[in-house]
């Protein structure tokens, strides 16, 4: 049994699985049920001035019959009075002293407002704070959430105000609705953040009803953009976590969020630099019970690899994540088709023929059977054929021996640069 405990900026948790600030953490009843099911922590539904919500709030995107490939919402922060939330946080903490409770906060960008809420929340005993600079709708119109999360100066300043009074670790939750998340991440660390979490939801419109021409969802015939999350956003979130993890100016732990539904997704986020993860959509789709498999699967994974503690895998893939300019231009892979496994759907052929490099031939073998063959000299190793192939093991992408020494774009440019200089010198 591996040690699943984590320590994120001094915040202890029995395991890396937290519920993200969202409907699953709306009340004490829910968070207590979640802890009973095995969740290690919960980031309470964002506290602030209670708001009014609209009815018809969520929509999901199905992909070819798979439900909830992506999830969209136009819900705002908590709609319950602060006092009620605080009372339930206190009760929950008392019942589950070893579980992690983080209070998510959002107030107007004013120093006294931040001081006031931080003091109130810390007075009842939480393990940390998460500043919600990410909500992309509703609150942004009031100058909060992603409206302040998109302005690095506001992120820094507000984090600083919180740190002026906070006694518990402060996590800054970042919005992905920005060109370069490392800029706001850096701003948060300058403001004194103890950790950062990402991502909040991505601006989205789930769909349009082609019969009524209404947006999905619509509120009495009108729609507004919402926030996108769920499995579809995982690659976006994973990149943002990786970019922050490998940035030398961002030296705080990361809580990974976005599309995490299983122990495998979790392992990926941890390897890419997250110290723990937060989950919302997967819990909303299936209930709190999914955490049992997450815990057991992670534990079995670590045991199989002989790794004693989950903290030992944090960031292990980060050194492998770099810039395009550092990739070896002389590395070569090609596709190879195993005709004994191939079921002859010809999808690889048409994908390559129409949209890549026209190097998969449809041939007849000596015995008259149809076979597919890659002309390796023309294959650029794009992976497309193996991606569209429906059968495991029918197409292998194989490494060819490197004929030339490794050479990256940056090395090449540097070499060309010196040559150019030499040429200049010769000219002179």
């Amino acid at each position, binding site marked *: 049994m591996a040690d699943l405990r984590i320590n994120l900026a001094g915040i202890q948790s029995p395991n890396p699985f937290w519920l993200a600030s969202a409907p699953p953490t709306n009340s004490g009843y829910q968070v207590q049920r979640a802890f009973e099911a095995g969740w290690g922590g919960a980031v309470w539904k964002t506290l602030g001035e209670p708001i009014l919500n609209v009815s018809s709030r969520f929509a999901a995107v199905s992909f070819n019959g*798979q439900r909830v490939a992506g999830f969209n919402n136009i819900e705002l922060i908590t709609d319950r009075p602060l006092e009620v939330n605080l009372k339930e946080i206190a009760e929950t903490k008392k019942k589950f002293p070893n579980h992690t409770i983080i209070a998510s906060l959002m107030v107007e960008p004013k120093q006294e407002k931040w001081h006031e809420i931080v003091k109130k929340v810390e007075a009842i005993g939480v393990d940390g704070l998460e500043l919600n600079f990410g909500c992309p709708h509703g609150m942004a119109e009031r100058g909060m959430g992603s409206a302040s999360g998109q302005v690095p100066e506001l992120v820094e300043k507000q984090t600083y105000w919180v740190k002026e009074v906070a006694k518990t670790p402060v996590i800054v939750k970042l919005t992905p609705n920005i060109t370069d998340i490392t800029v706001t991440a850096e701003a948060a660390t300058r403001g004194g953040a103890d950790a950062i979490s990402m991502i909040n939801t991505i601006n989205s419109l789930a769909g349009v009803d082609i019969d009524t021409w209404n947006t999905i969802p619509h509120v009495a015939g009108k729609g507004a953009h919402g926030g996108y999350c769920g499995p579809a956003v995982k690659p976006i979130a994973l990149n943002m976590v990786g970019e922050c993890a490998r940035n030398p100016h961002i030296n705080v732990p990361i809580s990974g969020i976005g599309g995490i539904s*299983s*122990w*495998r997704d979790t392992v990926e986020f941890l390897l890419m630099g997250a110290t723990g993860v937060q989950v919302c959509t997967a819990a909303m789709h*299936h*209930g709190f*019970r*999914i955490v*049992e*498999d*997450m815990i*057991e*699967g992670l534990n*079995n994974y670590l045991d199989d690899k002989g790794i004693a503690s989950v903290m030992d895998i944090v960031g292990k893939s980060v050194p492998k994540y770099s810039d395009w300019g550092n990739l070896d231009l002389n590395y070569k892979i090609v596709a190879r088709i195993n005709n004994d496994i191939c079921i002859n759907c010809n999808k690889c052929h048409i994908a390559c023929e129409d949209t890549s490099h026209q190097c998969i031939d449809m041939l007849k073998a000596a015995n008259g059977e149809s076979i597919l063959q890659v002309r390796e000299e023309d294959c650029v190793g794009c992976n497309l054929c193996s991606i569209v192939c429906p*059968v*495991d093991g029918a197409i292998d992408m194989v490494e060819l021996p490197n004929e030339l020494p490794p050479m990256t774009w940056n090395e090449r440019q540097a070499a060309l640069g010196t040559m150019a200089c030499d040429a200049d010198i010769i000219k002179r």
Partner: protein
Amino acid sequence: MSTVKQSRISYDHIATNFQEVHPGLSNREAIEEANRCLYCYDAPCITACPTGIDIPTFIKKIASGNVKGSATTIMTANPIGASCSRVCPTEELCEGACVLNHSTKPIMIGNLQRYATDWAMKNDQILFKAGKKNGTSVAIIGGGPAGLSAARELGILGYDVTIFEAAEHAGGLNTYGIVSFRLPKEVSFWEVKQVESVDVTIKTNTKVGVDISVREILDNYDIVILAIGMSSVPNLGIEGEDLQGVYDAIEFVKQTKTHPITDEFLGKKIVVIGAGNTAIDGATCSVRLGAENVKILYRRSLEEMTAYDFEYEFAKQDGVEFRWLTAPLRIIGDDHGNVRAIECIKMELTEAGEDGRRKPIPVKGSEFVLEVDAVIKAIGQSRYVSLIDEMNLEHDGGVVKINENTYQTSNKKVFACGDVIFGKGQGEAMVVSAAQQGKKTAYAIHQMFTKTANETA
């Protein structure tokens, strides 16, 4: 006279006919099927499984790639879960309850269960650990599904468990009675190994009442569990039963699971008498041994047949012929004492009697003779009455009487579970019910001891 279907059966390599019929799901099939599961909450499939396996959870774990966890979920609820994935009548149990029956088609729960347990088997997984010893000793008589299941739970709870098993290997009918092409004995052996891994001692080749006395067991153990199942197929009570070529179906199947496959039935004509699990296994076994024609004779009709629909289908696909409303009168031998023919009589059904079953009565003058080379008796199983009597337990024709909540027999220190308590007229006995009864017996014993411990404390 029609011959059996050629396609599924090889006559050149009879032994290959005894390999498992279904190959099991490929990785891809398993992943696709697992992802089709809705992961219902409070799912009806769980309730429909007699052992209450948390089916959505084990399927979710296949989807997530946590196959070890999946196997653990299955085997925790059902210590015989690998065998059950192959022999349970799933369309009447879990799959029959799947909510997708109402919209698309049910999840292949049995096949997914097999996928996960096969993985654990192939990867030599040991899934459970013995509990801290609590000093109480339990003797279990019979190492079939019921005995093994009780032993596994008691081992985990810390009891000192010894199984006494008459046969060379444990596993009961799973090892010897259910045909290899449905249940290879290696699957049963793996389950036995899981039981041994929780510190259970299994004494094989030890028949209670012969190799060790009943008294010795009753005196030396704190608790005794009787899980001996049922005995051999009873006699038909007709002339010619001791001719060469008359077989007990269970013994017949056992031969194919313990000896090299024989070619002595190639091209032969065989009749099987009865229409339960055992008859189907006897008949399909005969087909696979290369018999030219196999008939099942049953004195009632299709409706009363106790074999499951999937078994009936399976037998039909194997080319087995069914002769309903036909009863044997006598078996006719040749000069060498070998079976030559069987004389039968047509039956008709009366109005339903008190037990709701219609009684078959002979139709006068409808006698006829079938030329056959062998007769397989499969009219149920008799009971180990003498052992039960020797143990001084109350019983009803060999069906041991128990308290339905505690599985306790008329002797407070003796419990009973599995086929040995399976009453008459309840359809067919199932492996999965035997497994569940074993579990419940273990819990009842544990409750009895924790209760007394609490009372004395």
